[in-house]
């Protein structure tokens, strides 16, 4: 497995990892044929986020690893896709400051160590300086969220800035937000427990019309409540345009996807 990323793309990976670090404690890497998936899930398994970097994002993208186990039994060595789990703190240490990364890093190389238990990430910086991180990794299964896009009757596509501007009006310590799509309106409200005295709480409601959205397809009236913290960092603060939200009924996962114009896709989903 060998990957090479150059120039500004290194800090893009760094920013993706910073976003994931706000949700989960472990980072799951999988080098698929259609790109490098960088994923995480939170401890209660209620929020999942995934970034997929297409092969075009890399200067060199060679995802396969030779499985030594299959060589042992005399059969043809099988090429498998690289997959591992790595502590979020470890990988964050490589991409500590995306701003510095942009200024100093010229190239980033990732490869699997000879013992297959180490991921070697090398940053080639200005002035000939090289930083090599040998990080311990663990085997893992593919991390996937269970949902079916076809079951979602509602689709909203919007620029993230609109959602950031909406969320800024809520109290900073707000934990859960209710999103309701009804007819030709989208409502954002702070979630209030049903048995709370209405005279003692402040309710904030933001109403958005279809004109604010790039795509607005609502078939069923839906009201869902979700944890703002998980969604906010990945979804609302994302620096990638064209946020697509697919929403179902309460209890079923809602899926948010960012799309990038040149075919590179980052996607986040929260359940």
């Amino acid at each position, binding site marked *: 497995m060998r990957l090479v990323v150059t120039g500004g793309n290194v800090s893009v990976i760094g920013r993706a990892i910073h976003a994931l670090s706000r949700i989960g404690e472990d980072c799951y890497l999988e080098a698929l044929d259609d790109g490098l998936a960088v994923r995480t899930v939170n401890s209660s398994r209620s929020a999942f986020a995934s970034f997929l970097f297409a092969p075009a994002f890399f200067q060199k993208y060679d995802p396969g690893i030779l499985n030594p186990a299959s060589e042992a039994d005399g059969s043809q060595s099988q090429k498998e896709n690289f997959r591992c789990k790595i*502590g979020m*703190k*470890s990988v964050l*240490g490589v991409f*500590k*400051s995306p701003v*510095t990364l942009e200024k*100093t890093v010229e190239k980033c190389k990732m490869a699997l160590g000879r013992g297959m238990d*180490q991921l070697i990430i090398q940053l080639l910086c200005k*002035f*000939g*300086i*090289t*930083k*090599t*991180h*040998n*990080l*311990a990794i663990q085997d893992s299964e593919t991390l996937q969220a269970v949902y079916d896009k076809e079951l979602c009757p509602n689709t909203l596509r919007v620029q993230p800035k609109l959602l950031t501007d909406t969320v800024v009006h809520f109290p900073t310590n707000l934990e859960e937000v209710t999103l309701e799509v009804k007819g030709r309106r989208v409502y954002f409200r702070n979630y209030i427990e049903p048995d709370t005295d209405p005279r003692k709480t402040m309710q904030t409601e933001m109403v958005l019309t279809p004109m604010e959205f790039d795509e607005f397809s609502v078939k069923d009236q839906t009201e869902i409540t979700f944890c703002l913290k998980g969604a906010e960092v990945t979804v609302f603060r994302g620096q990638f345009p064209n946020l697509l939200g697919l929403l179902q009924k309460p209890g079923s996962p809602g899926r948010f996807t960012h799309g990038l114009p040149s075919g590179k896709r980052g996607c986040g989903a929260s359940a």
Partner: protein
Amino acid sequence: MLQTPGPDAGNDRFVLVATLDNVRHLSNLLKAVHFRDQATVFASANGIRVTVEAAKSVQGNAFIQACIFQEFRIEEDSVMFVVNLTVLLDCLSIFSASSLPGMTTALKMCYRGYGYPLTLFLEESGVVTVCKIQTQEPEETLDFDFCSTNVVNKIILQSESLREAFAELDMSSEVLQITMSPEKPNFRLSTFGNAGSIHCDYPKDSDMIEAFHCNQTQCNRYKISLLKPSIKALALSCKVSLRTDNRGFLSLQYMIRNEDGQICFVEYYCCPDEEVGEFET
């Protein structure tokens, strides 16, 4: 009749008088060695040296030459006393909270000798504060016996390139391993923390390296907690020199330019970690 001396009279009674138009020329340097409360102040005709030590393994020295001061008068060959550096720095920055940008605090530092407090007169915009800080019995400071003839390897770097490496040091590692070699990697900083090992390599022909004199491959480990305070000195400096001697002792010398463009030096000495384990390359 006893005459009560005015604030300026009686300078003859002081063994040390030093004045500065801008107290920051002193306080910035002292902050670079402020990793313990206790500091030893040594003054001679050359100027002032402030020494701070820890664990009998690391020593920081800040040098302020006599020529930096607007007035520097010493009546004895040398004067030495111990003072609380935290208190001294608090006094030197007494006006900083209310300072307007561009305002400087002037300092007159006076010492009458053994048993007397260190007296500071600080002035800004016509307001004068007098501070008297108790001094303590001077103690012998460590002599690392580091002399140029025993220097095996020496590298001079632009501080800018080292600052980032030190700021991002994996503090979960107990040691910082420094490798200096005529072979590649010419200059390597390594840590071995919870995440794994991290190596930062500088080739000898890098634009950031001003001088590279390495005759022998040396690989030494130093307790990272002892070297961490030197990051303050690194942050202020424009150039740094790293030297190791035949015992693996490390000397770090930082060239610091003050606001008026004058040059001062801060130096750190550190002895190598005694446990000799396997060296990872």
